[in-house]
């Protein structure tokens, strides 16, 4: 079995708080791997270490066999690590098409050119059109991002991540704040991408997790307490305990 992502003994402390406590985890090529856990379990901290925004104190991260532990974030993107943000983080003054276009351009290169015309880069805009026509934002191409609904922004997050052509996509709560219908649309979209790339999905919406995940890892107090299929996780007493919070009771 090949692994697109392998995390070994990752550790991160903030003062006295151990946010990531010796986490080891792997994502198989092509699978959707969900990471769940109660609030404060360290999911976002883990994601931020994977994408390079936070530096781990110890441990190793391998992406497709390469050690990326000390690589800056943009280089990890070049190697095929894409991400979406939990709190949408977009280019608010640009239109939807300009956002996606810039993501395509960033990957395509030539970003230091000062004598070309960005509107004249036909291959960039063709790809942008292609990405958008396959998304729910097809009719919103020329809308400014600041004018989009929350659900549309979440979709745009995803399209922009796809524009970087990731081999592994880190999804940081893609359903957060979505209504039932919008969540279902997001689940369908992600399901449609199954097999095209591997995904590490951080999500609170259990319905979405059980609908999508091939395997699930449970993070509690910075530690992975188990990894297994949906059924194994559902029936695990430790998981129930963690979610019902009997430790504190």
């Amino acid at each position, binding site marked *: 079995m090949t692994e697109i992502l392998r995390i070994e003994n990752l550790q991160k402390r903030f003062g006295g708080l151990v946010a990531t406590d010796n986490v080891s985890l792997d994502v198989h090529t092509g699978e959707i791997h969900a990471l769940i856990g109660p609030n404060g379990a360290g999911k976002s901290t883990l994601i931020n270490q994977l*994408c390079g*925004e936070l530096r781990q104190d110890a441990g190793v991260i391998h992406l497709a066999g390469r050690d990326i532990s000390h690589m*800056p*974030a*943009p*280089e990890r*993107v*070049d190697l095929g690590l894409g*991400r979406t*943000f939990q709190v949408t*983080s*977009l*280019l*608010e*003054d*640009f239109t939807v098409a*300009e956002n996606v*276009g*810039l*993501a395509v*351009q*960033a*990957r395509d290169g*030539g*970003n*230091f*050119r*000062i*004598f*070309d*015309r*960005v*509107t004249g*880069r036909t291959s960039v805009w063709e790809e942008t059109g292609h990405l958008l026509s396959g998304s729910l934002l097809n009719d919103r191409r020329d809308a400014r991002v600041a004018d989009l609904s929350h659900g549309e922004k979440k979709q745009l997050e995803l399209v*922009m*991540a796809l*524009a*970087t052509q990731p081999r592994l996509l880190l999804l940081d709560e893609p359903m957060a704040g979505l209504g039932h219908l919008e969540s279902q649309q997001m689940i369908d979209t992600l399901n449609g991408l199954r097999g095209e790339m591997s995904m590490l999905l951080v999500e609170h919406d259990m319905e979405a997790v059980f609908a999508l995940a091939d395997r699930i890892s449970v993070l509690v107090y910075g530690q992975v307490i188990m990894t297994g299929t949906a059924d194994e996780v559902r029936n695990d007493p430790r998981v129930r305990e963690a979610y019902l919070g009997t430790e504190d009771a």
Partner: protein
Amino acid sequence: MRKLILPILLIAIFALMPLIADMVGKNALMTLSARILMYAMAAASLNLILGYGGMVSFGHAAYFGVGAYVVGILYSHWMSEVPIFGLFPGSNQLFVTLPIAMVMSGLAALVIGALSLRTGGVQFIMITLAFAQMIFFLFVSLTAYGGEDGIIIRRANEVPGLNMRDKTTVYYVILVVAVLYFAWMWRVVHSSFGQVLKGIRQNERRMEAMGIATYRYKLYAFVLAGMGAGLAGALMANFLRFTSPDMMHWTKSGEMIIMVILGGLGTFFGPILGAAAFLILEFYLASWTEHWQLGLGLILLVVVLFTKGGIIGAIARLKGGRE
């Protein structure tokens, strides 16, 4: 081609200015017009990093001054026929001094930018200000080049085939350089790099997540901006036939920021209109009262409070459309 109306109109006004000044018998109008052109270039270069790139540099006059000093120093060595450091000869040729001025101010921007772009926010503002003041005091203490008094350039740099003793000729040379500079700037802000720069202003974190190592792009913009200011400063030294540390005083950096904001941050024509508004106000207010800065301050206050996006923003709102 409605897009071409404003640039053609602006070029026509500036091209006719010497004739108008002559007709009404006010030579000062041509001087004012030339100053507007040169400050518009400097403000436009600042607008590249401040307006398009979102970097609040408070030391932009340093590059303006470096450009001016390159002209002054090259001229003084050409006069004395003593090579600089015993190595390089001086020059009074515009086609030599302008490129050297751009290279030197670009180098200054490279060093200052490389260090200050490691910070952000208020630290960035303070560190660019600090570096600019360091350069200011360096030139104040350079007694070999006049110290506080600066360098007097007895004649404007030569251009083959032109009589640069004639003030009007110098004016048209400045106009041509300015038009070329703005044509170049138009390309930059509409280029692939321009798009990346606008992205960085809006959301640096997002750009990093798209694989853009933002530091390099910001530094590139910073150097391009420094070169533009150096070019404007070199022209200024030729026009005034004088250069002094005053040109790189921090208040000059502040004036450039005011011009950019007054005209419209991150808009192409904003710096031109901003520089024009600032210098025309200064010209007329200063002739009424020595407290002209009070009037200017009030006008700036009104512009910032009541027009979203300076003069350009006000025009866009009057036209009822979004820019």
